[in-house]
């Protein structure tokens, strides 16, 4: 449910950049969202449609690139997606350790009209 304030933040950041570039409207916003970021893409889109009314973002399309979390094996260095209830490397069986892959949460780009 915390997608509401976060969507406001996305609109605020996108509008700030678009205004600096003298845009008349924002056509699309591309987000990169890791599955461990804790944010749900569908909820962002739902809030976005409501909150963006009357802003430069109104009518903009949200494109979301999802990133699957990966662990790094402490034994062989393999990057892998974990199985449920396990942190073990599928290649050598050693424990994986967390990485930043899958925690992304940023605006990659916007498409503007001017």
């Amino acid at each position: 449910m915390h997608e509401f304030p976060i969507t406001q933040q996305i609109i605020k950041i996108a509008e700030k950049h678009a205004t600096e570039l003298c845009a008349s409207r924002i056509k699309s916003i591309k987000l990169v969202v890791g599955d461990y970021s804790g944010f749900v893409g569908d909820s962002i889109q739902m809030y976005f449609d409501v909150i963006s009314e009357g802003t430069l973002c109104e009518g903009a399309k949200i494109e979301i690139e999802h990133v699957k979390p990966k662990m790094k094996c402490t034994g062989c260095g393999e990057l892998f997606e974990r199985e449920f209830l396990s942190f073990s490397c599928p290649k050598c069986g050693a424990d994986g350790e967390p990485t930043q892959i899958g925690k992304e949460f940023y605006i990659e780009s916007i498409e503007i009209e001017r």
Partner: protein
Amino acid sequence: MHDVLKVNMMANIHDENDHIAAHTNEDLTKQHIYAVNVMGAPGVGKTTALKNIIRNLKDLKPYVIEGDIESDIDTKDLRGLGIDTFQINTFGACHLDAPMVHNMIQNMKFDEKGVLFIENIGNLVCPAEFSIGEHCKMLISTVTEGSDKPYKYPLAFEKADVILLNKVDLLPYLDFDEAFFMKGVRALNREVPVFKASGKTGAGFAEVADWLEKKAAEAKAVQHHHGDGKTEHHHDHESSCIDRHDRLEPWRISCPTEKP
């Protein structure tokens, strides 16, 4: 014909929250306060754990911010024990964020060096995603929740600086697999200290309090208080960055959206 332009941004959506969190951290450090973000699911015994830790503090004065969706039950309880406690009610929001805590800190009076416990909303998911200006994240997990929690809620365990495994007095009645729990914790967080504790009997909390006092003493805030003159503050914001309100007395109940 409109001119269409693609603009690469790479803008971190958490930047503003993190900026305010850094601001809070600096403010607290200057006031010789070591801040602990207390996280855990509802019912793990966060407030009871705080009472037990506070009872065992030797050198530092305790301060508490209670985060709850609604109510001030825990705040009244802690104030009844003479602990300076403030309430943040989020009215639906599932975690504390940096602006809420920053606004509260501006209204608090820290008359001695100490530890500020910020009890987050009972939730094992969202609080781990937001910095609130803390020096340390304390995660409270329990044997009653089950040993699979690190596997199901990995981020909270990964981000923790210290973990309490609470309610261990109930172990004889449960099938808690401690080895499985610890294997998960260690995969996510190789160095984190894990203390076994019981809010019911008070066992284990003296060790937690000792650990916290040592960590606080290592932090710049407390060293500075002892007058070594080494404290430096690199993150210098203008005080007008965020509204400062008049300071509140400790018994004031305040909601972050309400201007005192």
